[in-house]
């Protein structure tokens, strides 16, 4: 057991972990002290964005976040694409691509309740939509057929709007 402890100390010294350990202890102690003194600091969310807002982090558009998190329920069954082909728009859309893209785009950030930088591409190519949303007939055939009840038409519309650069560009 002693050998294991010595190994731990050696590992700490070798990786420079002492600094991390002391930082951990200091912040931990500070946290305990603040709790003891019952300090109510500034709103933690405001504090977060004062510190990290300049890096481009923002609160996401709640509607967009809701739709993208809903898109995560996609089973990739492809029924929306079939329905859309039946409607026969020109150019033909593949709503499934939009749903799959929505379920991936910045999804880890959205789960944290944050939005990182606005997507760079203006034509939507960078986020995986290769058909313009203007082709969408907004007939909602895709939404009505979706077994996972994803509001596909609105996911598609939201992504297309993102691709169009309507969101404010990231600072810097």
């Amino acid at each position, binding site marked *: 057991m002693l050998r294991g402890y010595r190994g731990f100390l050696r590992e700490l010294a070798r990786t420079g972990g002492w600094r991390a350990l002391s930082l951990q202890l200091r912040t931990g102690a500070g946290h305990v002290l603040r709790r003891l003194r019952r300090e109510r600091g500034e709103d933690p969310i405001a504090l977060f964005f004062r510190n990290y807002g300049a890096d481009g982090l923002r609160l996401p558009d709640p509607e967009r976040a809701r739709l993208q998190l809903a898109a995560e329920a996609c*089973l*990739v*069954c*492809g*029924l929306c*694409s*079939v329905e859309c*082909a039946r409607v026969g728009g020109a150019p033909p859309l593949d709503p499934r691509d939009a749903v799959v893209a929505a379920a991936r785009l910045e999804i880890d950030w959205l789960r944290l309740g944050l939005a990182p930088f606005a997507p760079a591409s203006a034509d939507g190519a960078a986020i995986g939509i290769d058909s313009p949303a203007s082709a969408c007939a907004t007939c*909602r055939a895709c*939404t*009505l*057929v*979706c*077994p*996972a*009840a994803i*509001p596909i*038409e*609105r996911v598609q519309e939201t992504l297309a709007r993102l691709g169009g650069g309507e969101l404010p560009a990231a600072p810097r």
Partner: protein
Amino acid sequence: MRAVVVGGGLAGCAAALELAARSAEVALVRAGPGATALSWGTLDVAAGSPLRRGGLPLVDPASEQPLAPGRRLVAATHANPAHPYTVLMRGRSPESEVKEAAAALDAWLAPAGLRVLGSVEQTRWLADLRGALRAADLAFTGAGEGDLASAEEIALVDVPGLAGFDARPALRMLAAELAAIGLPARPLRVVPLALPDALAALAGEPARLARRLDESEARQALRAAIERLAAPGRLLLFPPVLGLERVDRVIAWASDTAGCRVAELVGAPPLALAGHRLDRALQAALARAGVEAFAGRVSAIELEAGRAVAVRIQDPAREAGEPERLALDALVLATGRFVGGGVVERDGRLAEPLLELPLYDLAGQRVDGIRPHRLVRRDYEGEQPLFAAGVRTDARLRPLAADGAPRAANAFAAGDLLGSFDPARDRTGLGVALLSGRRAGIEAAGC
């Protein structure tokens, strides 16, 4: 009399069709197809997977004789007195109840080419996509033709590149399960289906492939490849891609072309086309019966003096607008469970959003207002209180409030919204939906 059915899965459709048959003016509000569109191609009244825990008993523990499906159903109600079947079967014969329900469903679906095959008198063995066996006595056209016991030779059709299906592991599992069940041994093989170029490009998108097979030109292109699979006494089991609209025509064509029996494997999402076909056929039946359909989610139910008087519908296309109001004389709630949104997590706690009904688990414990993760246990195959959460009803299927009295004199509940059973575990999901949906419709028509 005006009735409003909330929910467009099998339970809601069955209620609406029974109401329409009793000359009520019926409106059906549906947000989406719900869990019915994710069903696997079997009508799970008393289906079971004998080699998995939690399924219905296949053998009578007292006499050690195999149980007929109807008896399995009775055994399920004995094992769990809170099961919706217990309410539905009280004072009735389960076999005749199921037979009648299956005949009614068959009549609704038949114009769309979907039939209910099999009977509750005899256990039939079907194979699913993974090669697992199901004792599924009733199944829809597609999987329903695939009874394994009567096949001299079983051949799984491997479609190269098809997303969601791998024939070789399925064959290994099927062989092991057939042996474990003790069915007489018979040859099992994988036969590859060489798709012509025009169709091979669609293998990655099963729904599109199925849609193309509805067209006779696409089938002509496939003719030579199907003819090569022919062998006398063979049962050809295809992955569930044989048509999106008229599976009966595609199967009849393939069977004629190959000169042997053709069926689909019982599918599972993402190959959820069997559920989609069921959903389409039900929608067609609703349209024929003159049921008025509303797309949207019911946002509120208005109660007056212990009766439901109206629902408000929020159309997702215009969230800002004023919700539409539908006045009613009778209400059927078939909002489903977690897929349909009949049971939701609200502010981190389990709730029934429309009438604030209390929810119960398998053991009859109240579970509403509890955080969902507290209702999940570590045992993977074991009972999960969360998955059985739903409402409790009186003998007329009226959902009960916390004081044990019906929440409203003219509100009825059906389908997965009914609690105290876990459809994924005991495989009675569509059976409960069909039987309780019909009964709720009949009861509502009497309002």
